[in-house]
């Protein structure tokens, strides 16, 4: 994403960093000091504000991977691959955060670290698909071919996720369902506000990290190019 990211980076880079930092402080204040403790689940429920936003961000990230992959195959421009790849890395990171925070919450509430609940299972499969996305490049000798293969995986994976989710949900509803938190709608205003602030914060953080990752990738490419140029001169 040669020029585009450079631009975004220049104009938005610093403000985004400052904004993410400030917003994170606000979020922490809201989550730990301001928002009332949930009646039934107690203090553990607060992890919810660090569980839902990463999940949303991960989904956003994989959507960007999907779009970037299509554009890369269609236009053949390396910058779309840079975008997709950077976004996939972050998506995997945020999915991991989602899974970990979910587990931490699940243990005291459900009594287990892990259960084969549809959302959990679908998230785990999502995680596996994008791990494969990241791995495939390492196993292909030629970089642009690896990028094309990854793009194919990025497209197929994203289309597959809703089908996976649907199939697992059917599968579970036909069996005895585990205890699932059902009172997500009807969130009290204070909690809703905290959640929204946290969502905004995480989204800003994601965009900031995406720019960072993109410019890092560009620098790597630039170094490679300079190395080549020097090799040619000598």
């Amino acid at each position: 994403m040669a020029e585009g990211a450079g631009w975004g980076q220049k104009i938005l880079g610093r403000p985004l960093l400052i904004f993410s930092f400030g917003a994170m402080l606000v979020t922490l204040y809201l989550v730990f000091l301001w928002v009332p403790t949930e009646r039934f689940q107690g203090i553990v429920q607060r992890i919810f504000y660090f569980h839902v936003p990463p999940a949303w961000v991960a989904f956003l990230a994989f959507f960007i991977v999907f779009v970037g992959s299509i554009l890369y195959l269609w236009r053949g421009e390396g910058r779309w691959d840079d975008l997709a790849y950077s976004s996939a890395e972050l998506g995997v990171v945020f999915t991991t955060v989602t899974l970990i925070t979910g587990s931490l919450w699940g243990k005291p509430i459900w009594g287990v670290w892990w259960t084969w609940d549809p959302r959990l299972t679908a998230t785990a499969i999502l995680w596996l698909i994008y791990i494969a996305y990241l791995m495939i490049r390492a196993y292909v000798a030629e970089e642009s071919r690896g990028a094309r293969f990854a793009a194919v995986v990025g497209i197929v994976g994203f289309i597959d996720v809703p089908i996976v989710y649907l199939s697992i949900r059917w599968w579970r509803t036909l069996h005895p369902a585990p205890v699932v938190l059902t009172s997500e709608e009807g969130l009290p205003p204070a909690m809703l506000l905290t959640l929204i602030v946290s969502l905004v914060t995480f989204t800003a953080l994601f965009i900031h990290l995406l720019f960072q990752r993109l410019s890092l990738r560009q620098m790597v490419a630039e170094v490679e190019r300079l190395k080549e140029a020097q090799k040619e001169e000598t």
Partner: protein
Amino acid sequence: MMSGPGSGEAWAIEALGITKSFSRRPVLRNLHLKVAEGSFLTIFGANGSGKTTLIKLLSTIARPETGSIVIAGMDTRENATQVRRHLGVILHQTLLYDDLTVQENLRFYGRMFDVPRLEERIAFVAHRGGLNSRLLHPVRTLSRGLQQRAAICRALLHDPAILLLDEPETGLDRHASLAFWNTLASLKEEGKTIVMTTHNMEWGLNLGDQVAILAEGRIAYQEDKATLSRATFDGIYHRYTEVSP
């Protein structure tokens, strides 16, 4: 400098402004190449200069990032499948199924090309390639020289007007090499348009009507052989092939 097609002639191959890179490293940069119908062009170039890439682009296996390639009057982007009917291609590998016999391979490819009266055609190309007695042998049991002949039979099966050859002399012993030379010479006689990349000066200079040098991602030099002395060409050849990495 370049011999244009005279009246009534046409370009068999026209490549304009071709760019192709691998892993963001440009291999071909804004390459232009024209080959007149019925002529034999040999392309020299150092290892890694992009000879194979050029052949793959011309044969529609790979696609250029920019530029257009027109073969037999058709754009390869729009009419790739039609273009392929006019192309006979020989790459480093035989493109033949090792476990199938020569005949089975030719039948398979013949059907893919809808070759009319296929059995007769197979008999004809096999006879010509001196492979009659080997038709029923699996490809893996043949020597490199015979495999190369089978590869030529495959490339000629659909009677293409244009032949693209990528370093066909590689791995052939003296005898096989001589036989292959004769085949090429007779194909040239028949009026096929031939583009061949090679490392072999003897071959390139004797068979080609035109010689070209691929360096720094473009055709750095292209000249009619008739107007060329060996000594001058040697000088030019070394200048270009030693510059490139």
